[in-house]
Structures are given as structure tokens and as C-alpha cells.
């Protein structure tokens, strides 16, 4: 069925009920990863490399094992040495061999913080003391941190068996460049020859961490027969199960994985760090083992996303029509291949209908933690560069920056440089909403500046399961296979309630463990409300069919002669008015006598995720004395398809914008000369705090996605794409300075302001 109908005809979808898991979360009852306890539980801790790059000569655990209270120690020797094998996890490629070696280093440590050994002991303090008693002999090797330094000839090589993929003929020497990718459309060289105006720039971004407030945590239990339970904070319980099975060499069916409440992920909890190690410790110790990362470990050994160097060149005719665009991207992958270079190459120009495009990207390893997905992986980096260049182009052409984007904007039928043709997209509607928003024409004071920038993300669908159960009293249970990271339980319950015609209060949504619901791809790619929502909607529809059939049975009329309306069965057609309507509760009561329990589980592989577009408007004021940038006003416009629960859609937009503002102004990994991170804590790695930000106005443009029953598009990732360029463009407007290097931190901006005024004076 299709529910893409006016809001006035919807009863639940599009309203703003209190989320079903809300009370637990404001009272402290919700159980997150570190909150679980089991009888006999002991504590696991990880020993980590103090070196950026070193060979592991020997590990001696005997002194640690001799410490009273220590129950088990594991190293890579306790795990199978698995072969290279690609696994696709939704937001980026993953190689099981790399994953295993990231969980516990084998032969070499590749970054400061790389896990080397783990210990389980009766208390946290004993476990910590035991770490000091593990003797690791290292042979320290030269290291490389910077992406271009890692690409240079003579750079220290991380992996002797890494030969750049995507170059013909196949290289004969190992390299830190894992992969070269290229996309082309038309003839960029010829296009540039037609250009009246050309803008060029070189941009850099720093790695930033997802910085979820909840550190990674899990609790593992393994019975004598090998049956294992793993409770963890994760974006995918099925992912945890599959990855643990692979890394440990166990059967998937022997592991039951329970998703705990997750305290933020943003892509950073789409892989495992602790879980296989905790399971190995639990098996060895014969006791349940809890492992929780410290914040310092989170920074040094999990996440972040890539830092990058991007070169952009755009050529246009005097009327503003772009004739050619070129981009070269170098993305850091961290210690193992797998930066989001693919999306990086695609997303920068995906918003525009361009005749000639040439994009080349490099995936580069260096001695940093392995990158993890971070909200629209790869897109914010490329868009910072492209949207900054678009701003320069608008200035050079003396065209309004939104008009320039509108003129060249992708519309239905526009073919991208990576081969996909856009259908049913809302980019132009988004631009129009931004242009007509009062913010865009509000007056500014001297010293203030306004910037705009846009962003694109594909959004994905994928394998999902949802079940709807009618309970004996007519109340409804909805089970999904996706951890609820930002309110998805509410949207699942709302879609089910809408289809069933019952009040939301009668619908209780839960997130099932791996034995309670069919396989579901992890929570990521902005897929859950779209794909899992589709499964839940279909399950609810099948339940309605069953309810109608049961009513028909009770009335002894054909099922086709029953109508379902407002949570009740009505006799229809010739039988209209012949019987009193039957409520859901009345039918449920008789379920045992009319064929058994009423429920449905739908598993599907959802296709047709509609891409999303955003346009952000940012006003800033720059303190020329300190270089501090104050965000005065921020408006984020986005095509959201259909907002199931508008408050949580707004929340995604506001939260994404805030993360992008942090990326633009403050956040970065800082290394010393030995390749050690200098700011592994929230004091020195500064995420935005409440006093850094204004209210963020989220404007939802609803261009329904025709391939979802309610018109849903993913919304969670698009909003982190535009902010860095929106902020940089606002700073450009306020100061006249193009700041191409992130973050635009106070010392950097102050130095640029000083240099500019010095140049003026001279």
C-alpha cells in the first residue's frame, strides 16, 4: 500500500509523540553497553602500543598471569591468523584480516594505541596492574603520519604486501597507497578550454572523531559447550555476531549478540574492537568478562574519519554555467586500507549537472588508528573543498551563490559523473526553500558574514527485518533488528500504528537480539527508517490482512468483504452494517480459536533509498583580536522525504550541523614528532559545547521518496555535509579570507588575519 498522502489524512505519522523509550532515558534506567552485569563477572583491560610503528619481537605474559586475581591473558596467538577476505558492512569496505589485526596486533603495531594483549582479572585495579606486568619487546620502526608524506617515495611502508590497486601495469613495489580510483564524464580538458572563469584551490581537512559520549563497551559470556553471549554497544548486533565469529573462527550460530542501548555511534560503532577479545578472555577465564574503553582509548584506538588533501578546479562560462570540474582527493585510511575515498570521489559533484568531470582519489595508509565510518563517510571532506570553490566561483562571476547552485543543480534525469541518474530528487526544492527563508535576506552588521553551502548523501536500504505481533489483549509488539541510535523505535512504532489504525500508546517497539528477529544490516547509511521501516510497514499490513481474515471467519463471510478502518474490522459491500465492528482487542481475544497467534515477520532487501540534499546558511562574527569565530545564526534546510517523527528528524539535522561546526572550527587530531596523539581527551579535543552554538533552525522540505510506503528518505547523514564550507564561506564573507585548511581554529585564523593586515600595511 501507499501512504504518501496529505498530512491531514495521517493520524500518527507526522505527529510528535513522546518516544517509547524516553522515560527510561531521562530516569537513568536505560541499560547501555557498560551497564550490564552478570553473576561472576570479571574485568578485561587492553594493553596498547606506545609506539606509532614497531615490530613485536616478543610478548611475555608470565608475570601478569602470576599476579593474584588474574584469570586470563590473550594475544594475537590466541586467534586464528585469518586470510584476506572482503566483507561489506554498509558504509565502507572491511577486510576481515585487517579487522582481526586491528583487534589485536600481529607481528607489527601500526599506530600508538594499537591493541597488543588483553587481560581479565577479578577487579579493574588488578587488571590494570597486570597490564604493567606484560613484557612486550618492540623493535621501533620509522613512522609516517601525514597523508602526502605517506604517499612519497621512500616513506616508511606499513604493509609489505600492499601494492596499489587501480594502476596499470600492477606496481612491483609495495606502497602506502592502497588504491587509486577514478571517475570521469565527458572531456574535462576540453571543458576547461570553454571556460571564461576558472577557480582552483587546495584544501586540507584533519581527522575528526565521531566522539560519541559513550565509550565502547561489552560484556561477554561463553559456556563450557562454546555457546556464547555478547552484550555490546553497537550499531549492529548481527555485525558483531558475524565479525566475532570470523575473528574467533567460531560458528555464527554459537554466538548470540544482544544490542544494548547505544550512546551514540555516528558510524564509529559499525565494527568491533573489544568484542572478539572479550569473548576470547571469557572463554579462557570461564567467567563473564566486561570490557569498557577509556576516553583516551576511544581517541587513540577507535574511529576517527579521514583527514585529507583535496585539489579542486571548476570552470564556468560568464553566465554561470559550469563547463568542467576536476578533483583530486587523498584520503587517510589510518593503519589499514579503507578510507571512504569512493564516496569522497562521488559526493562532491553529485549535486550538480555537469557536462565534463574528472575525479581521481587515493586511499592512503599511515600510522594512525584505522578510520571508521563517520556520518556520510567521505562526503563532508570533499564537499568542504567543492563548496568552498563554488563560493569563490560565485564571487568571481558576481552571481548569488544559491543562484549559481540552482543554475547548475541536479534535477530529475541528471546523470552523475559516477554513472547514476538522479530520479525524484529534491535538490532544487531545497535550494528554493533556503533562498526564500528569511534568514537568507536578513541584514548583517559590519564585521559579520554569511555563508551558504550544500551537501548530498546517497542513503542506503539493504537487508532488514521487522515483526509485528498482536498480543492476547490486542496490544502490539513491534520488533526490529536495528539498534535505536536516535529515536528509530518511535518511528517504527508510528508506522505500525498508522497501518493498524491504533493509537501509538498501544504499540511497544523493541530491538531484538540476533536470536529474536531475522537478519538485519546494521544501523547506518541513514537506512533504518527507510528500510527497516519498510519491513515493519509490510509486517503491519500482513497483520491487517490476518485481522480481516479472522473477522471474516468470526462473521462467516468472505475476507474480501471485510474492511479495516481505525483499528477495527467492518463488514463491507453487501454485508455492510450486517455486524457490529470488531476491534483489534476482540479479534485478538479469539485468535486461538480462529487459527492461532496473529503476527508477521517480514524480511526484505530494501531498494530505492532516495538520496538527500541539504543547504545550510550560516552567519558568523570574527573576533579579529583572537581569531575566534562566533556562530550567530544557523539555518539548515534539507529534503527529508517524509518526516515520520518531525522532532527526531529536526534533531538529526541540528546534531549533524553541530558536528560539522565542530569539524570546521575546533576538532582535529594533533600528533607529536614520535607519532603520538597529543590531545586524546575532551579537554584538548574540543567538541562544540552548548555555549558555542546558537539555536539551529531545521527546515524540513518534504519531497516524498516514491519507493517507500510513507515517502521516507534517510535524513541522518546529509546534515553533516554542508557545515564546514558554510562556516568557511561565512568567514570568507566576514573577513575576505579564504581559509582552506580545517579546522579554522583561533590561532590559525588570527595568523591569517595578521598576515592579511600586515600585507595591507606593507
Amino acid at each position: 500500500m501507499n501512504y504518501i498522502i496529505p498530512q491531514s489524512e495521517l493520524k500518527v505519522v507526522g505527529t510528535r509523540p513522546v518516544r517509547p523509550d524516553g522515560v527510561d532515558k531521562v530516569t537513568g534506567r536505560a541499560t547501555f553497553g557498560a551497564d550490564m552485569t552478570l553473576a561472576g563477572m570479571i574485568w578485561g583491560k587492553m594493553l596498547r602500543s606506545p609506539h606509532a610503528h614497531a615490530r613485536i619481537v616478543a610478548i611475555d605474559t608470565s608475570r601478569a598471569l602470576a599476579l593474584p586475581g588474574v584469570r586470563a591473558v590473550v594475544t594475537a596467538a590466541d586467534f586464528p591468523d585469518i586470510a584476506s577476505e572482503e566483507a561489506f558492512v554498509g558504509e565502507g569496505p572491511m577486510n576481515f584480516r585487517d579487522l582481526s589485526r586491528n583487534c589485536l596486533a600481529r607481528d607489527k603495531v601500526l599506530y600508538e594505541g594499537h591493541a597488543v594483549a588483553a587481560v581479565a582479572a577479578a577487579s579493574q585495579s588488578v587488571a590494570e596492574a597486570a597490564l604493567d606486568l606484560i613484557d612486550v619487546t618492540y623493535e621501533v620502526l620509522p613512522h609516517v603520519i601525514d597523508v602526502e608524506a605517506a604517499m612519497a617515495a621512500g616513506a616508511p611502508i606499513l604493509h609489505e604486501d600492499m601494492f596499489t590497486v587501480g594502476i596499470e601495469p600492477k606496481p612491483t613495489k609495495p606502497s602506502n597507497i592502497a588504491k587509486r580510483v577514478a571517475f570521469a564524464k565527458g572531456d574535462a580538458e576540453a571543458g576547461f578550454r570553454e571556460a571564461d572563469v576558472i577557480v582552483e584551490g587546495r584544501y586540507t581537512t584533519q581527522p575528526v572523531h565521531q566522539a560519541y559520549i559513550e565509550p565502547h563497551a561489552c560484556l561477554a559470556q561463553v559456556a563450557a559447550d562454546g555457546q556464547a553471549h555478547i552484550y555490546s554497544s553497537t550499531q549492529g548486533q548481527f555485525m558483531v555476531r558475524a565479525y566475532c565469529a570470523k575473528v574467533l573462527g567460531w560458528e555464527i550460530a554459537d554466538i548470540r549478540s544482544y544490542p544494548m542501548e547505544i550512546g551514540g555511534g555516528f558510524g564509529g560503532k559499525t565494527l568491533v574492537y573489544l568484542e572478539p577479545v572479550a569473548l576470547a578472555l571469557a572463554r579462557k577465564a570461564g567467567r563473564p568478562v566486561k570490557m569498557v574503553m577509556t576516553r583516551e582509548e576511544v581517541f587513540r584506538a577507535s574511529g576517527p574519519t579521514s583527514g585529507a588533501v583535496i585539489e579542486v578546479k571548476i570552470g564556468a562560462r560568464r553566465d554561470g554555467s559550469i563547463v568542467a570540474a576536476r578533483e583530486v582527493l587523498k584520503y587517510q585510511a589510518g593503519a589499514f586500507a579503507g578510507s571512504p575515498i569512493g564516496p569522497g570521489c562521488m559526493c562532491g559533484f553529485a549535486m550538480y549537472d555537469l557536462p565534463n568531470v574528472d575525479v581521481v582519489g587515493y586511499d592512503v595508509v599511515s600510522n594512525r588508528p584505522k578510520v571508521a565510518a563517520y556520518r556520510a563517510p567521505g562526503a563532508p571532506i570533499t564537499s568542504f573543498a567543492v563548496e568552498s570553490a563554488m563560493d569563490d566561483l560565485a564571487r568571481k562571476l558576481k552571481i548569488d551563490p544559491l543562484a549559481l547552485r540552482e543554475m547548475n543543480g541536479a534535477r530529475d534525469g541528471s546523470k552523475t559523473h559516477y554513472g547514476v541518474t538522479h530520479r525524484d530528487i529534491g535538490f532544487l526544492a531545497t535550494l528554493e526553500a533556503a533562498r526564500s527563508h528569511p534568514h537568507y535576506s536578513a541584514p548583517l552588521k559590519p564585521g559579520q558574514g554569511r555563508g551558504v553551502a550544500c551537501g548530498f548523501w546517497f542513503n542506503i536500504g539493504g537487508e532488514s527485518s521487522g515483526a509485528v505481533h498482536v498480543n492476547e489483549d490486542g496490544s502490539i509488539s513491534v520488533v526490529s533488528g536495528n539498534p535505536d541510535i536516535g529515536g528509530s523505535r518511535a518511528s517504527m512504532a508510528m508506522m505500525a500504528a498508522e497501518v493498524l489504525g491504533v493509537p501509538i500508546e498501544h504499540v511497544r517497539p523493541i530491538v531484538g537480539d540476533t536470536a529474536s528477529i531475522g537478519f538485519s544490516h546494521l544501523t547506518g547509511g541513514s537506512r533504518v527508517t527507510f528500510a527497516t521501516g519498510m519491513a515493519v510497514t509490510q509486517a503491519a499490513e500482513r497483520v491487517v490482512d490476518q485481522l480481516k481474515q479472522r473477522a471474516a471467519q468470526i462473521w462467516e463471510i468472505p475476507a474480501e468483504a471485510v474492511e479495516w478502518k481505525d483499528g477495527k474490522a467492518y463488514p463491507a459491500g453487501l454485508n455492510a452494517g450486517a455486524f457490529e465492528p470488531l476491534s483489534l482487542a476482540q479479534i485478538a481475544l479469539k485468535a486461538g480459536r480462529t487459527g492461532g497467534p496473529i503476527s508477521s515477520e517480514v524480511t526484505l532487501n530494501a531498494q530505492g533509498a532516495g538520496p538527500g540534499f541539504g543547504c545550510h546558511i550560516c552567519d558568523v562574527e570574527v573576533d579579529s583580536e583572537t581569531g575566534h569565530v562566533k556562530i550567530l545564526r544557523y539555518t539548515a534546510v534539507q529534503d527529508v522525504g517524509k518526516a515520520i517523527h518531525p522532532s527526531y528528524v529536526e534533531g538529526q539535522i541540528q546534531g549533524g550541523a553541530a558536528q560539522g561546526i565542530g569539524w570546521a572550527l575546533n576538532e582535529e587530531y594533533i600528533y607529536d614528532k614520535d607519532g603520538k596523539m597529543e590531545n586524546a581527551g575532551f579537554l584538548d579535543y574540543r567538541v562544540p559545547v552548548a555555549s558555542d552554538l546558537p539555536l539551529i533552525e531545521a527546515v524540513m522540505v518534504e519531497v516524498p521518496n516514491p519507493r517507500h510506503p510513507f515517502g521516507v528518505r534517510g535524513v541522518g547523514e546529509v546534515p553533516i555535509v554542508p557545515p564546514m564550507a558554510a562556516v568557511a564561506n561565512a568567514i570568507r564573507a566576514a573577513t575576505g579570507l579564504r581559509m582552506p585548511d580545517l579546522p579554522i581554529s583561533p590561532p590559525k585564523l588570527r595568523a591569517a588575519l595578521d598576515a592579511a593586515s600586515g600585507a595591507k600595511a606593507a
Partner: protein
Amino acid sequence: MSKHHVTTTINGEETEFLCETQETLLDVLRNTLNLTGSKEGCASGDCGACSVIADGTLVCSCLMLGVEAEGKTITTVEGIADGETLHPVQRQFLEHAALQCGFCTPGFIVATKALLDANPDPTEEEARYWLAGNLCRCTGYDKIIRAVMDAAAEMRGEARAA
């Protein structure tokens, strides 16, 4: 290693516990008393997820030793509601959808209660600076600030403010 015996009042109940010297109040709350509503986000006083009120003062329980709780009156997130009746701050957080993952929420609830106990009529800027010690990575603070302002108005007996 001998443990210390501590007598304190937590959420209105006299409570005794044993703790190691180096254990923080947060460790004791979570691991000894099973009050896991207070969260550990950093263990360095930077994120506020472990906020509690100790003798009327808002503190990060990760920066206070368990032994320092001796004789004090501690309120944790578990003690904010009155039985089954939510505190106005909790209710406004729900109505404004001022949480996404919910991990920072206990700290914000406690910190907001402390704010409104001290200043029943804060400006938006005062609220933002008071809460600058509580990190939220999900919401961008917009809905949190609206919830705080409306909770303040409700507690003053006014209609909606924001």
C-alpha cells in the same frame, strides 16, 4: 588491600558501602551500588555524563572519590523523579525530544535541576554557559536548551517560554 567503610545519603536513603581508596564516587555508584544511571564518558570531568548533586553542589562524580561521600547527601539521576512522577525537567526533555541516544541525558537532567535550583529564571545564555560542562554529541543542544527554558518556566508557574 583493605577497603574503606563509607556512610552517606543517596537519593534520600542512608547508604553504606565499601570502596578502595582510588575508586571514584562514579565507580562506587555504578559498580558497587548498581546506580548505573550516572555514566562515564571521560573520567576526567570534561563531559558531565556523571553529574550528581553533592550537598547542593553540582559535581562530576568521576572527579570525587568514593570516600569523599562520607556524611554527604548525594542526588543522582535516579533520585530526580518523585517515585513514578517525573520531574518537570525530565518531562520537558521528553516533550521537546531533547535526547537522541540518551547517554548524556542523565547528566543534563541533573545539571539542569541544579541550575534551576540555583537560578529559577535563567536567560538562554546563562543556561548555555551552565550546561557547557555537559557534552551532547547528538542534538546540537537546540532542543535541550528549549526543554530547559520551558522547564524553568513551568517550575516558575508560567506558561511556555521558548
